Each structure stands twice: as structure tokens, then as C-alpha cells.
């Protein structure tokens, strides 16, 4: 009797392991394609990225990552996405920017979308430490007749 129960449990366990493996595989595949968060789904024209460049949205220049669609609808409704892509800040810094827009620019309360926006900005547009003066960005040399 006990043996039969054990055997049944083992069979159940096998199915559980298979189910778990399938779940892990699905999640891995999903993550590979850098999908936006659940709430973004209906809004993104998603295609499988062929290279790193494909993770930049062609229309807005924003990095396609979780939170992208919320950011591209919320922030870009009023201003250029370049105000995001040019700038870098910590999560705290981005929150201060949101508060400034709410206090002075008529931005609405983002509610549950606020952490989604902040996660996206803090992860994808984090500060770079460039010191007191970065090097000159001279890449195009040209001949000058002096």
C-alpha cells in the first residue's frame, strides 16, 4: 500500500519537474526577447531583436526594455523622447524630475505606473561618471589648408 503511494508520488513529482522545466524554458525565452512589462503589452510593436541595435525603438530612440511602452506613452505625450535619451540620472534623480513636472508642468499622478517608469529610467538611463571635463569628442578629422 505504502509502496503504491510512493510510486504515485514519484509519478506526480515527475510531472511537476517537467512542468517546472517547461515554465523555466518559457520564462527564459521571454526574457531573451527583452519583453516589456505585462501592462505594456498591447502597445508595443514587438519583433524579435536580431542584434543589440534592434533593442532601440526606431520611432522614439528609447531602449526597448520592461517599462518601455509605459514610458513611451506617458512621457512622450508632452515632450520629446530626446529629453529622456540625452539625460542620465539615478532613480532618485528621475523621481525628482517627475515631481518637478507634476508641480510645474501639469503632469498627472502616475499611480501604479510610477514605479514602472522609475524602474525603466533608473535601469536604462543611469548616470555615467564623467569627471570634471570629458575628453573632446573629435572623431571627424579633415584637411585644412592653412
Amino acid at each position, binding site marked *: 500500500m505504502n509502496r503504491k503511494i510512493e510510486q504515485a508520488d514519484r509519478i506526480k513529482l515527475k510531472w511537476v519537474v517537467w512542468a517546472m522545466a*517547461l*515554465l523555466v524554458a*518559457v*520564462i527564459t525565452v*521571454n526574457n531573451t*526577447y527583452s*519583453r516589456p512589462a*505585462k501592462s505594456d*503589452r*498591447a*502597445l*508595443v*510593436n*514587438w*519583433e524579435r531583436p536580431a542584434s543589440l541595435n534592434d533593442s532601440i525603438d526606431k*520611432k*522614439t*530612440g528609447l531602449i526597448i526594455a520592461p517599462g518601455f*511602452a509605459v514610458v513611451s*506613452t506617458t512621457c*512622450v*505625450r*508632452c*515632450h*520629446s*523622447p*530626446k*529629453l529622456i535619451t*540625452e*539625460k*542620465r*540620472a*539615478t532613480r*532618485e*534623480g528621475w523621481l*525628482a*524630475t517627475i515631481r*518637478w513636472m507634476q*508641480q*510645474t*508642468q*501639469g*503632469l498627472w499622478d502616475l499611480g501604479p505606473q510610477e514605479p514602472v517608469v522609475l524602474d525603466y529610467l533608473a535601469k536604462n538611463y543611469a*548616470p*555615467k*561618471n*564623467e*569627471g*570634471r*571635463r*570629458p575628453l*573632446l569628442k*573629435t*572623431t*571627424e*578629422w*579633415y*584637411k*585644412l589648408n*592653412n
Partner: protein
Amino acid sequence: MAGLSLGWGLFAKSSKAATRAVYNSAALPDKSPLPAWKHPDLIILSDKPINAETPPHLLDDAITPAEKLFVRNNGIMPVNVDAKSWTLTIDGESVKKKTVFTLDELKKKFKHYTYQLVHECAGNGRAEFSPAGHGNQWGNGAVGCCEWTGVRLRDVLEAAGIKDDAVYIGYYGKDTHLNGKPGEVPISRGVPMRKALEDEALIAWAMNGKDIPAVHGYPLRVLFGGWPASTSGKWLARISIRNKIHDGAKMNGMDYRLPIHPIAPGAKIPQDNEHFRIIEAMPVKSLITYPKTGAQVTAGKPLEVRGHAWAGDLKINEMHVSIDFGSTWQKCTLKEQRNRNCWQQWSTQINFPDKGYYEVWARATDSNGKMQPMLVPAWNPGGYLNNACHRIAVEII
């Protein structure tokens, strides 16, 4: 969860209509947001609002041509502007009599003046601040010096009558807020009366001898040379004479303000008027406008280098260049100022000692003896007033 994730790809692919709806309200258009007559090499920093800077080598003219002047808008430009029915209202707590002038009346009733005035975005050079300041990450080219024709603000304010308690003026333009809400003002700034009553403070209808282009404020704008360009309101419709510091949009918090006491890079302080002061005259600064950075020049021949220098309400006393990162400085030839609040031209010939990579650094000194710093100056949350020396790369071959 797995089911939802699996289904998502299929669902998203069938939602192109929703995607289009999103992007219709979104930003990057296929075409430049600037009018076609603008120089194609202007760098577009934002298309909503329209913000574009000029690469320094395009600013070589003594008088900045319209096609090369930077664009900094805060809201959406007015459409269907009719100059014939355009009016300017002078009102506020400290006006003796609220007065409305048509554009034609302004032209007929008051004496005309022409001045060449520097106007520079307070955030010019912001891109070099670390951590990044608030707003567009401007390089060095958010500056220009055009010739403006109009009437003195002072004459117009005095015609309406200025009460003794007047301390500030504030402008209102016809541009509309980015968020589309009617009645919301994108920007409404001003200056203290002492600046408003100066000879060079203009209400202008012409830029470089022609109607002001739409993107620069047609048909009327106010101009305060040497002060943050945000004080020089476009599409000017109203000026209020105030009995207190003007409290319009972008006059408070950290907008166009600096911490009263210097703070460490990235430090947080309350964004209120107790901790921030309004930026007034812009600091000493210069640009190398010739040659364009990246020049490869033949060894043994001198290189001509030139540009402009300016300093808010002051003049430039001296101009120097260095090709050894500040170890030694060579004095430049400097032209006199054409009028107050106009930039000055400088030039020099540089002999390079050897072949190889050089940087030419330019440093102006104002009439109070203040020099441009070689490093990015005091950090501030708004990323304003970076007047660090401009530099270009040169290779001697």
C-alpha cells in the same frame, strides 16, 4: 503566468493599430522639426518643444544669420499669427494705466533703435555637467548675437506709466503649453526694473533687418542682451509691471536659478526660493568659431584661430589661447564692442612647435577681471552657467 507570456507575442503582433495611435502622439518625426531655411547642420536636441543648437564653427559671422541661430522653445509655437491685429498689453499691479498697443502703433509712436545683442541659453554647455543637469543636454552652441530693431521697452512702459512700487516686469507670449491644457503657460519670465529700463532692453519686430522668423518669435519679442535668453520672450503679447518679483511659469523652484550657497555635485537641497536665487547676467564666455574642431593642418605654417567673447552686462578685457593645456597663454587681438550687450570678435595666429595632436583652448577675461575656468564650474541641479573654456582639437601633419 506562462500562458500570459506565451500569448503575449501573438497579441502584440496583432495590435499595430494601437501602436500607431501611441506614436501619433509621440515625438521623432521623419522630417526635421525646423523650417527648411534653417541650416541643415543645426543639432536637434528636441522636437517637442523644438530645441536645436548650432555647432560652434557655424557661429563664425560677427552678426549671427537667422539660419544659424539656435532655437529654444518651451511650448508649442502659435499658429496663424496675424501681425496686423497683433497687440501688446502693458498691465500689472504697478502700471499707472493698463494700455494696449497695436504693432503698428508701437512702430509709429516710439523712436526706433537697432542693437546687436547676445542671447545665450542659461543651460548652454549643460552637457558637460556630471551628474547631468535637468533638461536638454546642450553643447556650446545655444548662443547667438543678432541685430534687433524695435522700440525701447523703457519708452513703452513709461507711456503706460510706471508706479513707484514697480520692482519687476514679466512677459507673456502666445505659445501654448506642451501638455495641451488651455490656459497653462509654458514660460513667463522677466527681469528686475533696473534691467528693463536700460537703453538696450528692446521690444523688437525685426531681426537682422527682416521680420523676426516665426520660430524666433514673429511678430514681436522682448530682448535683454547678456541675460539668460529665457528672459527674451517670443510671440510677445503682454508685459506686466509687477510690484513683486515676477511669479510666472519657470520663475520659481530651480528653474533658471542657482543654489544660493554652493553645493557638492549631485547634492540635494530643497527646490524653493529660500535655497535658490534667480540667474541674472550671464558669466564671461568665449567660443572658437574658426577652425572647426578636427582640423589637420600643415606643419610650419601659422594657423589662424578666431571667435567671439562676451560677458553678460560687462565687456571683455582680454582674450587668450593655450595649446599646452593652460601651461602658457598667448594673448589675442580683440575688437571693441559694437554696443553694450554685444559680443566681441577675437583672433590670433598660432605657431605649433611640433607635429602631432593639440588642443586649442580659449579663455576670455571680463572687465571685472574674471576669467573663464578651464574645468566645469560649480555644479548646480539645473545645469546652468557652464562657462568653461571652449576647446578644439587640431592635428599638425
